[in-house]
């Protein structure tokens, strides 16, 4: 899907996982999309939810694509550049499928929740049964639909399970407002990410976090 289509043609269809995130954002919010890529989600939120949106993206090529479509996106690194923003600058800060690729996930989480009143975070679940089977019986690092790169070329240096993530939230005294267990495509499963089944059966998880 290309960004200009989202901007220009009304009935929008964006990737299921992005749609899941978009559905969590109330209209008119102030949103920072961290790792916004070419701005597909941002364009959708701006156009159809009237959000006041900003984007931060590492890849200059993707930034150019987003800005060329009229989106307020800057090139930057989330691990060093979030500190530039004032506290509480946004209603929602979105970090989609990126936390596991950061050098310091805890620090990133702190920054997300400083800059935003709420954070929407999604990540692949390393506790999924397919991952476990792969290590247990294959004896090798898993390559699954969610984790498609071999160990020597994956950007994912801090993978975690849903339970690990919930532990971190508890450790950081972060409140989980909502958690969704998702399949590979980003469709919701029939239970919450905080449900016992999620750690084994969700391919990915999506959380709405806040500081109490």
């Amino acid at each position, binding site marked *: 899907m290309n960004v200009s289509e989202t*901007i220009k043609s009304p009935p929008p269809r964006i990737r299921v996982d992005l749609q899941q995130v978009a559905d969590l954002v109330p209209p008119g919010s*102030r949103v920072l999309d961290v790792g916004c890529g070419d701005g597909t989600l941002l364009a959708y939120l701006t156009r159809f939810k009237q959000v*006041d949106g*900003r984007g931060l993206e590492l890849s*200059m090529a993707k*930034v*150019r694509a*987003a*800005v*060329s*479509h*009229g*989106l*307020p*996106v*800057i*090139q*930057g690194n989330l691990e060093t*550049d979030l500190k*530039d*923003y*004032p506290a509480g*600058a*946004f209603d929602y800060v979105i970090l989609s499928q990126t936390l596991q690729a950061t050098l310091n996930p805890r620090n990133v989480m702190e920054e997300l929740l400083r800059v935003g009143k709420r954070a929407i975070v999604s990540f692949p679940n390393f506790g999924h049964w397919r991952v476990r089977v792969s290590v247990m019986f294959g004896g090798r690092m898993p390559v699954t639909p969610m984790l498609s790169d071999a160990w020597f070329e994956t950007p994912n240096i801090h993978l975690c399970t849903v339970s690990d993530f919930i532990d971190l939230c508890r450790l950081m005294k972060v409140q989980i407002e909502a958690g969704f267990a998702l399949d590979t495509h980003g469709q919701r499963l029939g239970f919450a990410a905080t449900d016992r089944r999620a750690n084994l059966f969700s391919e990915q998880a999506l959380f709405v976090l806040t500081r109490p």
Partner: protein
Amino acid sequence: MAPDIAPQPAPAPAAQDLKLTLQSPLVLQSGVTLSPVTLAYQTYGTLNAARSNCVLICHALTMDQYVASQHPITGKPGWWGDLVGPGKAIDTERFFVVCANVLGGCMGSTGPKEISPATGKPWGLQFPVITIRDMVQAQAKLLDYLGVDKLFCVTGGSMGAMQVLEWATRYPERVFTAVPIAGSYRHSAQNIAFHEVGRQAIMADPDWSHGNYLAENKIPKRGLAVARMAAHITYLSETALHQKFGRRLQDRETLTYGFDADFQVESYLRHQGYTFVDRFDANSYLYITRAMDYFDLAQENDGILSNAFKGTPVRYCLISFSSDWLFPTEESRAIVRALNAVAANVSFVEVKSDKGHDAFLLDEPEFHQTLQGFIDGSAEICGLPPRQVRGPKS
């Protein structure tokens, strides 16, 4: 597609030399009162009924108001002719484009070459030192006269970017979008140093006559040419110079063991220097470079740049070029950081180019696409009509 059925682009707008003499004197940043003040300017396109489609273009040090029309002295096309015109990124069919020669300039606006009312002679060094803020203040009065309360966009490269920043911070309520290109919030020590070399070259020319050369019927050609040569090097990247000239010799097979222009690069710079003299005034060069040196948006705000942007409603788009070492990307990034610190609406793109600072004047498709995308996106938000898609009638 056969060329004969391709849609014909509308002809480039003709230059129409316009001038405005301000009704009231201008109180300069230095405290000096300057009167009368005349601005020479060009406009393209038509102001809409809501007066909401005005784009102000601020020119760089040695440019002028001929942004999209033929230059009256050099005969060259407008310096941003690739960007400004019917159907272009700054579409003159949708926008009312204004570009004025800066205060202190030498293409018709009040500057050191014009006649001082007190003496009846050219101002020369009696002309007061002007600043970027003074230039912008004069432009604001021009827009008052044109009936433009709020600019849809103010943009410009290099010194133009300084004026854009001054506009957006001094008159935030009058600016919807600001696009500073290849610029900085202040002149660095290196920038000032290069300007000082240029000024010293001019002042070392005996024909400069302490700034009185016009009254004495002289022109400090050599000094101004050297100033231009030194400055021109800073506009290009090492790669660009190397690719263009390498160590190739000029119209000769071997070295001459003398100080003639053996190398192509020497010949090129001499040409740049000597053609510049025909279209630029040496004293204007002194005054305008000084205005750039004095510009420091952080210092004006207690040393904290983000203070300049507090509560700004302006939508910013910063564009830099990867090989620009005169106004490096880091300068634009510092502005972006300051804008982030107040959670302002900001886009920022570094365009990959090997052409150095000059890239903002050249055909850089990525730059043009970025600018056009930002302008079209902002126009939509501002409620201006979309770009007319040009295509063959089916």
